[in-house]
């Protein structure tokens, strides 16, 4: 095992290896920054370039891409309220308010640091789990998926600000949207209005790009000025190093986020978006100041970003154990291996040890490289928040639409982004929380399918949710989230919190 590790390191830390890795990291950053495009697109587009290359070169390139995409995506989330990739969505909630307060540099610094640490913790987690990889993957099945999704959905209650009713309306609307398209269980088509485009449901990337990027651009256009609303009076951009320090101070949030990311990454079928949402909600739960979230709490940036990077380490666990990818990026990556004549499967760690270690190292080093680049340019990137809307809006709108179109070469996706952009603007305008809608949309499908699967497993008996310890633990936690604050509020009879969107 150590021999392979040393061999892999020997290949990576050469001029050739370093070049492929740096190239991957730069491509990853770019694809991360541009809304709509993400890791899967980047890797898919790179495939033809790896033809005729040595497998380890291809692997290093892909590892570079996978390690760098999450941080790239957080930059647009923070500066423009536009998640660069779907898993960066949760970063918008607090990252953008920080940018509006003139603390963009600090937020980017925090995201970069949290990304690297998360990525490294994910790799450590992976290394520690290799001996028990199989057991870990087999531990989490449909009942646990359901309980996890429910826990995330309970986050709607936390994200509603003061107005629970509006939060629930939006959450229900989000769930409704998640149920559009094929019912994975019965095979029936629902709520599509006869539109073939909706067969596969409301596509997540166009919807998220619309409801954040396009909405924000409409909002800015109406308002005028710049993202940073403070005018010229505020003396200086907050320092990037403050962001780095804030992460070190908040190390429990980093640890918690990374662990959630790694565990969720290890579960095939639950994506990075779920990981970062769960991490965000958990950070709110354990915070001493839950009311500061959504208004620019730095922990709201650290939590999702650490989870987002840690998930790739986790996603390798089922890949190694069974040859089954834990994330969308990993699935494409396995395709690359097949193209290079390597067979992913349960014996992968035995047969292709070198490949595995090349990837692990490339992933770990790439997220550090990406973060270092990020820290170096954060100061200048933050100036984007001072660019006038007349320049900013047309650029961002064009890039967002092109990104959404490029994903599947589908013009319908662009229309979908526009529809969600208008919907999002109306929600902001009339003070309905977008977060609730997004949580419903992201978690609805997995909650529904895994609920049905659980009942099929138990032949209709509900006891399945109470006899499995992990499921039970998650359900009790969820119940506590919903009930404890209510009891607390009743006991102290505080006036309700102020609204926030």
């Amino acid at each position, binding site marked *: 095992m150590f021999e392979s590790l040393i061999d892999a390191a020997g290949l990576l830390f050469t001029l050739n290896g370093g070049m492929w890795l740096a190239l991957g990291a730069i491509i990853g950053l770019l694809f991360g920054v541009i809304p709509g495009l993400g890791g899967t697109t980047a890797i898919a587009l790179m495939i033809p370039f790896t033809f005729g290359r040595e497998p380890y070169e291809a692997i290093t390139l892909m590892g570079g891409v996978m390690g760098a995409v999450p941080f790239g995506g957080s930059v647009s989330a923070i500066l423009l309220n536009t998640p660069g990739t779907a898993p960066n969505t949760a970063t918008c909630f607090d990252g953008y308010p920080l940018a509006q307060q003139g603390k963009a540099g600090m937020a980017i610094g925090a995201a970069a640091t949290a990304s690297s640490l998360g990525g490294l913790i994910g790799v450590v987690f992976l290394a520690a789990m290799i001996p028990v990889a199989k057991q870990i*993957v087999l531990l989490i099945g449909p009942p646990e998926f359901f309980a996890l999704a429910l826990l995330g959905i309970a986050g709607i209650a936390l994200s509603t600000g003061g107005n629970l009713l509006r939060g629930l309306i939006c959450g229900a609307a989000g769930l409704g949207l998640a149920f559009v398209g094929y019912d*994975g269980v019965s*095979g029936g088509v629902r709520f599509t209005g006869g539109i073939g485009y909706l067969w596969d449901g409301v596509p997540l990337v166009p919807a998220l790009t619309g409801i954040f990027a396009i909405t924000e651009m409409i909002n800015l256009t109406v308002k005028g000025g710049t993202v940073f609303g403070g005018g010229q009076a505020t003396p200086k951009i907050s320092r990037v190093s403050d962001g780095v320090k804030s992460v070190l101070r908040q190390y429990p949030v980093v640890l918690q986020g990374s662990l959630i990311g790694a565990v969720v990454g290890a579960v*095939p079928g639950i994506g990075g978006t779920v990981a970062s949402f769960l991490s965000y909600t958990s950070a709110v739960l354990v915070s001493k100041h839950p009311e500061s979230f959504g208004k620019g709490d730095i922990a709201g940036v650290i939590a999702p970003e650490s989870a987002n990077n840690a998930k790739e380490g986790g996603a390798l666990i089922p890949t190694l154990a069974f040859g089954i990818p834990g994330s969308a990026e990993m699935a494409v990556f396995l395709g690359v291996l097949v193209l290079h004549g390597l067979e992913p499967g349960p014996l992968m760690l035995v047969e292709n040890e070198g490949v595995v270690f090349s990837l692990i190292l490339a992933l770990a080093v790439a997220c550090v490289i990406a973060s270092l680049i990020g820290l170096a340019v954060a100061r200048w990137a933050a100036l984007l928040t001072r660019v006038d809307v007349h320049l900013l809006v047309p650029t961002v709108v064009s890039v967002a639409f092109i990104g959404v179109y490029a994903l599947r070469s589908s013009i319908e996706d662009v229309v979908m982004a526009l529809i969600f952009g208008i919907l999002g603007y109306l929600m902001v305008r009339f003070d309905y929380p977008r977060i609730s809608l997004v949580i419903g949309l992201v978690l609805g499908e997995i909650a529904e399918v895994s609920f049905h699967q659980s009942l099929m497993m138990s032949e209709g008996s509900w006891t399945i949710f109470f006899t499995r310890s992990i499921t039970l633990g998650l359900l009790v936690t969820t119940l506590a989230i919903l009930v404890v604050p209510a009891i607390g509020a009743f006991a102290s009879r505080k006036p309700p919190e102020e609204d926030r969107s």
Partner: protein
Amino acid sequence: MAARHLFAAACAAVILIGAVLPATAASYPERNITFLVPFKTGGGYDATVRTVAKVLGKYLPNEVDVRPLNLPGGGGRKAYTKLYNAKPDGYTIAAFAYPGGAMPQIVGETVGYDFEKLTWLARLSQSAYMVALNKESKIGSLADLRGRELPVKIASSGLGSTSFAVTAIFAKAVGFKMARVTGYEGSREYTLGVLRGDAEMVIGTVEGLSRFVESGDLKPLITFEAKPTIPGLLTVREAGFPELEGMGAQRLVAAPPTLPDDIRQILSDAIQKAISDPDSQAWAEKANRPFDPLDGTAVEREVSKGSFILKRYIEAVGKD
């Protein structure tokens, strides 16, 4: 060097053929060809298509690029509908997963294409199905299956998918009670479901499942192959179901309906040559994904025979 000679030969061939054939094929192909792939990038099928597409261009009368375009969605319905409605000019062809792509129509769903009208160009490869069990399962034979009081839980994708139909057909043929655990996205997910114990039985391609048998994570029961890949494994013929033999996933290539015969011939021949190309063969060897080619006419026969059996069984099972 070889490519240049070949190109010269191809040019000469074009000039010669051009003199005798009607205009449609004389100049074909004049521009790049789009090769639709009904799946996401990555995965075995995608890799097979890309390997063939990479060298296909040089075996056409004029060397053009053959560009794979992944168009996943609706279990292939999106790509097949696009293919069905494309101009039958030889510039749009698609990979077609059979019987997966035919299944919605066979079970009576309205889809935007009619697979029976497509022009078949070739088969790239195939993999027969096999049945495997969770390693803790107490079932060791077909008799155990029939003797079970409680239904056997089988994991599969949803209604309209191949795995859904084949599991029903198998249960009907052998005669045991089954219960479904479904809703899985694809073969990887439902295989994992059985490894995890969500369900007890899984039916999938030999290619996909034999690796888990080899690693000791699954227990094999029976195979639909004529000659078992896993030594000593019971075959459906031996078990008394010869009509089920050969049932499996076929990786076909199709063109829109009413493709002119001459263009069909050119494409069909070129695909066969691309499969025999040393690069393709080297890849197949290394990746352990052997080609199993058939030309267009043979595929047409296979498809009509296969669909006949499926339809008959689906009627018997009552669409489940």
